[in-house]
């Protein structure tokens, strides 16, 4: 398959303007600026490219929601890649930052936006340094700033570094953080396209989405729509990690069987072990099992399978892994990252973690699984953002698909705890009623 985003990605110095231009860089920008903003928008609409950040909303439609007029509009590139398992944007920014900048300028032109920000997570220090240097180079060459390439179009671009908070990848949490506040998500509507950064209309796009824009302009939207499937056009960077031989980023045409990704490209689990379960779109997506490896890897097929493509991050766990241990990691992470604004998420993530720890310590009964499953349904759809849902969906799917295993874990842990309690009683020489419950860690 012909690579689009990853074409020449490992070329030494591709992060410099010189090499990028030698590879044909910024020619799409010249082409876009010679077109009218409406024509550029039409190309984006025709391409039918869906957002690569997680929600999969068509980019062209997002741009078209921006109000027309002379008000101050903003473009924010979401480079806060924090979804567990996802590392595709990192590779783009580190190796080909000008691709992102070019796409961003074209996107801003389509929406007639004059101020842009890139919000990059604070942990990506190397990538932020590279991007900052690239922005300075692009500004010196006249690709950013006033009257870009003599077109009369102005755009300022500021790189903003975050400071470590998963929730700032959520678009409205990101906006609050960019305004210098705690990254608490906002009530929607109004949606950012109407009232976003500094209360102005704001277009928010993921790094990968914007990086694809130059190619859409070069080849034409309709041509781009030929790649992939009808509902999921184009190519997608997929981060494969966990129990696979060759973890890393792969650029695939949307719609190929997931098995080809996990086994063909990434080599499958080591030592011939079998896949037990896998997350198809980051840790927030409901898990699939080894029986669902042939689901085509695209937005619609994943939705039909009851999960989601999300950020395009596959995490594979092989047959030796415990569902419970993964669920504990998951719940602990979301409990820590919940911003605390909405009660169902703040309490639900925390209590789910505690209940999972009860299973581990042998205090749980099979009824706890039902209670836990009901907590998940009470979180979903009841918060301002989807952080709580992002824990509830995979945990709910684990309880649904691996209930016998979890029930067995409960019994084994109970037996272990009982045995330990009897030992303690014998050792201490005290009566049974003083043994007390096993403390929760």
């Amino acid at each position, binding site marked *: 398959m012909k690579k689009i985003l990853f074409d020449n990605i490992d070329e*030494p110095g591709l992060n410099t303007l010189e090499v990028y231009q030698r590879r044909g860089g910024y020619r799409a920008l010249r082409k876009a600026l010679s077109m009218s903003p409406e024509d550029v928008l039409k190309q984006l609409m025709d391409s039918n490219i869906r957002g690569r950040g997680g929600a999969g909303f068509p980019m062209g439609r997002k741009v078209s929601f921006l109000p027309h007029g002379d008000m101050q509009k903003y473009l924010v590139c979401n480079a806060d890649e924090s979804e567990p398992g996802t590392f595709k944007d990192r590779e783009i920014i580190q190796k080909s930052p000008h691709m992102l900048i070019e796409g961003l300028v074209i996107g801003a032109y389509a929406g007639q936006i004059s101020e842009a920000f890139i919000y990059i997570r604070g942990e990506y220090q190397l990538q932020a340094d590279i991007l900052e240097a690239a922005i300075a180079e692009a500004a010196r060459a006249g690709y950013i700033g006033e009257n870009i390439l003599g077109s009369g179009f102005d755009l300022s671009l500021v790189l903003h570094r975050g400071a470590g908070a998963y929730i700032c990848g959520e678009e409205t949490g990101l906006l609050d953080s960019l305004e210098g506040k*705690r990254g608490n998500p906002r009530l929607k509507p109004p949606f950012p396209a109407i009232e976003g950064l500094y209360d102005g209309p704001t277009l928010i796009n993921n790094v990968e989405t914007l990086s694809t824009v130059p190619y859409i302009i070069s080849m034409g939207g309709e041509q781009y729509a030929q790649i992939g499937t009808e509902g999921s056009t184009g190519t997608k960077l997929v981060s494969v990690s966990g129990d696979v031989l060759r973890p890393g980023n792969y650029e695939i045409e949307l719609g190929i069987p997931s098995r080809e990704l996990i086994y063909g490209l990434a080599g499958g689990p080591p030592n011939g072990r079998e896949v037990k379960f896998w997350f198809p779109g980051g840790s927030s997506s409901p898990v699939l099992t080894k029986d669902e490896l042939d689901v085509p890897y695209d937005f619609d097929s994943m939705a039909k399978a009851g999960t989601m493509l999300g950020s395009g991050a596959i995490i594979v766990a092989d047959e030796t892994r415990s569902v419970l241990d993964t669920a504990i990691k998951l719940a602990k992470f979301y409990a820590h990252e919940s911003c605390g604004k909405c009660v169902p998420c703040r309490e639900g993530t925390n209590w789910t973690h505690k209940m999972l720890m009860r299973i581990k310590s042998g205090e749980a009964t099979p009824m706890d699984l039902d209670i836990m499953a009901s907590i998940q349904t009470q979180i979903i759809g009841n918060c301002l953002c989807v952080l709580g849902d992002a824990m509830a969906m995979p945990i709910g799917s684990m309880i649904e698909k691996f209930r016998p295993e979890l029930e067995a874990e409960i019994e084994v842990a109970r037996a272990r705890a009982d045995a330990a309690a009897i030992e303690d009683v014998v050792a201490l020489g005290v009566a049974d009623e003083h043994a007390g419950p096993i403390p929760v860690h």
Partner: protein
Amino acid sequence: VSAGRTSVPRFAHGSRVPGWDDAVDLTKEPAVVPDPATTPVPAELRAEIEAAMAKYPDRRSAVIPALHAAQAVHGWCSPEAIDQVATVMQVTPAYLNSVATFYDMLETHPRPPHNDVYVCTNISCSLLGADELMDAMVAAAAGDETVHVRSFECLGACDIAPMASVNGEYVGPLTTEDCEQIVADLNAGRTVLPDKQLRYRLCVDPGVAAGAREFGVPTDADPADTAGLTSADQSADRPGTSAPLQTQPEKPETDA
């Protein structure tokens, strides 16, 4: 209710979720925006904060960059550091504290200037042994005040799992034996594990590796774009250049 004087009972048995903000001292008067005349600020820090403020339409957007800068000077977001940022930005210390306590990379507990080691303990890394790595890293840095080890959310480098970020430099895949080396490298001021740095890692996609053989063959670029530019070899020395400059693409592990 008399204003701000009520003492709020707090339970000692752990009903407060660990990781949430510390309880507010309700007996203290709220601090006001500090007086620039009585709050000295290092000139470099002031310049850095002012430069950050100038980049945004609203100066408050510079809070995170400003706190990062102050933390670099003081080692953590100490009351002194917060006061200095508040003076330059003309906001209240409470506002800055509210932000500092939200973000994991901003340190709100006393800590001398130190090296940060973030060990990723999220799903992909933990599948491949991050918990053992974390234990080994803590053991290796035990008693060393200058090395601060902590487990961290997914750092976005699951391809080199299990991994850690050492002062921002991503290294992996790590074994428990690497931990002593990391501490030794940090104490000696050396580059940490140069063989395991993410910056030198090539893309694993076999299609990309095949394309890598074409390196150095220029495409038919617009003459206007390339006029006056030097060769790719010289560009390798420029600042901000990316990872695989010195390393040659290795033989790809193709699956075909």
